[in-house]
């Protein structure tokens, strides 16, 4: 009995790490801008699709357009960055803001040239590292577009309005990704080991069956989680982020540029989405259902607290383990007892678990207790 239990537990915990990773994307954005970003799942899908299509075999006709767009985006970002740097130099020397226009023109020209270059070059599959780098650049561009086109126009709106806007963004991204890349099921090959692994063969008869691919994926995810936690707690940008999270106006008054911070946060959570998309895509294949991972991450959020990085980690582990254990051990009992047409309780069990927990601790696992004032 203990053997299967531990096996399920380990499988659940490994999945839980991946939930943490997705939840972390939510937490980052919520902390720094108070936006409950429902588009996180769509971002994961978009990133996964982009990587899969860039690194996968290409049949030669329909992908040209997409290749063009991607390459244009990468070079556009690169040239715009150079342009931005040059522009800053100009400003330092006292030149007027008219240079901004020049920079934009420069970026557009760079994008065009890059696109043409990639168009003529990009008929085969890209190496994985290049695909990842390109996707990272695209996620950055996406963050820029979101900040520029959406968030900037919704400053000081109520939370629900911003939340709705992210629902709109999610819709747009789902459609955009599939328009650009098609909606078939793709594969991402990370080269993870496939043969099952048996642990503790001395302790349990037959050992514990563990999928090494999951183990590696979980290790990558755990590493990222640690890096992000350090980034948030120790670096200068991290401090600025936390300042913004505490009080927008106060942060601005000490000279922290709000728009830049938002751009950074959305870029970082775009990169988190990239990592999540990469790992999930390698595990399950890239398809539309991947954007539903966001829904799996939500109970993690209410369990761990919307603003807590450790909460997202521990919450993810609890939810991952709870979900698997309930499905394996509780569901058969329910099915037998109530004559159900199958189990599948993992879809709601995590939510119920989080909900019951919240009734006793409304601020979540690591959230701070709120003293209400009037």
């Amino acid at each position, binding site marked *: 009995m203990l053997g299967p239990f531990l096996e399920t537990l380990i499988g659940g915990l490994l999945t839980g790490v991946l939930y943490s990773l997705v939840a972390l994307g939510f937490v980052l954005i919520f902390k720094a801008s108070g936006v*409950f970003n429902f588009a996180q799942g769509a971002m994961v899908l978009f990133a996964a699709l982009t990587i899969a299509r860039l690194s996968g075999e290409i049949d030669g006709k329909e992908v040209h357009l997409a290749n063009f767009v991607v390459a244009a985006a990468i070079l556009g970002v690169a040239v715009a960055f150079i342009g931005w740097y040059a522009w800053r130099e100009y400003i330092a020397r006292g030149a007027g803001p008219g240079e901004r226009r020049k920079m934009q023109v420069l970026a557009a020209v760079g994008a065009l040239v890059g696109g043409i270059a990639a168009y003529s070059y990009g008929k085969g599959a890209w190496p994985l590292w290049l695909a990842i780098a390109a996707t990272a650049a695209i996620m950055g561009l996406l963050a820029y577009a979101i900040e520029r*086109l*959406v968030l900037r*126009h*919704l400053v000081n*709106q*109520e*939370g*629900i*309005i911003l*939340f*709705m*806007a992210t*629902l*709109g*963004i*999610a*819709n*747009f*991204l*789902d*459609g*955009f990704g*599939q*328009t650009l890349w098609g*909606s078939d099921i793709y594969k991402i090959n990370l080269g993870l080991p496939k043969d099952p692994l048996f642990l503790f063969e001395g302790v349990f008869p037959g050992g514990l069956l563990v999928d090494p691919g999951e183990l590696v994926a979980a290790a990558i995810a755990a590493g990222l989680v640690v890096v992000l936690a350090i980034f948030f707690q120790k670096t200068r940008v991290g401090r600025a982020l936390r300042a913004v999270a505490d009080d927008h106006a106060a942060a601005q008054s000490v000279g922290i540029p709000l728009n830049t911070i938002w751009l950074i946060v959305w870029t970082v959570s775009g990169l988190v989405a990239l990592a999540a998309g990469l790992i999930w895509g390698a595990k399950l294949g890239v398809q539309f259902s991947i954007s539903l991972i966001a*829904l799996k991450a*939500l*109970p993690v*959020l*209410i369990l761990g607290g*919307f603003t807590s990085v450790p909460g997202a980690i521990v919450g993810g582990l609890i939810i991952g383990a709870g979900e698997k254990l309930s499905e394996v051990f509780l569901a058969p009992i329910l099915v037998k007892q*109530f*004559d*159900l*047409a*199958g*189990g*599948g*309780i993992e*879809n*709601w069990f995590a*939510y*119920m678990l*989080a*909900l019951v927990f*919240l*009734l006793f601790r*409304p601020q*979540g696992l690591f959230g701070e207790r709120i003293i*209400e004032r*009037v």
Partner: protein
Amino acid sequence: MLAVIVAAFLAVPMVASPYLYTEILIPFLILSLAAIGLNILVGYCGQVSLGTGGFMAVGAYAAYNLWLRVPELNNLIVVFLFGGLMAAAVGILFGIPSLRIKGFYLAVATLASQFFLDWLFARVKWLTNYTPSGSVAVGKLEVFGWHVDTPADRYLLILGIVVVGTLVAKNLVRGHIGRSWMAVRDMDIAAEIIGFRPLRTKLTAFAVSSFFIGVAGAMWAFLRLGAWEPLAFDINRSFQILFMVIIGGLGSLVGSFMGAAFIVLMPILLNQLPGWFGIRMSTALLSHLEFMVFGAMIVFFLIVEPHGLARLWAVAKEKLRLWPFPH
């Protein structure tokens, strides 16, 4: 207002085609009622809910079971009321956490009800009368001996229910119960200090809201679909209704109708549009484009007017009245 209602009852049946009924008018009216229900909860009481689809499902399956198992009560009014009441009961149950959980925590918690109810209707065989995959169908619908068969009949029945429902909603939000909801929405602490009981106020909102949503769900199942499975009320339905409320205008009953009209007409329009310009597209591409345009429109509307179509309408009316003077 009265003119609109009279026109809807008398003039529309003279000109409407079956397509207009089944694809536009019937969905529009039913979803308007659902949007009114959700607006009571979100727009008036300030409790965000993502579980609308689940409550619609409760209404639909409760109505189905009454219709199936108690043939003596085969009167759609009774059946729909039962659906609404069951949804209200379930709404109260899932509203209890709202006492301790606020804001987005509550929004996520309401997803629990959505997923749980999805699962319930897919798995508990009794509720779907042991049909495979939980898909059920109804036939022989009547109201006090009137057989509701043609699209025109259905339309008139739905219209009647929606008019009464809207009137009830209007009465509630302008009375002291409506004020208690708005007080909790605007400042829950102050509301409690001047004597509103927070739990009771919120649960009333959950109950009334779920009642409307449940009736809408039952109507959707019986009069729009005829045969359905749990998938008809999944989380996408929840988002659809929430979009209606936000685009129409939080805390506005007229807005609920505008939002529903917008969301019902939009996809139809988008499907037709390329054809008018002589462009041919595959259905897959078309549906992806629909997603994109839809998302973009939502963001656009939120930026232009966060208070929704109802506010835009009010502003436009004011401008027209003053025209050609600026003020």
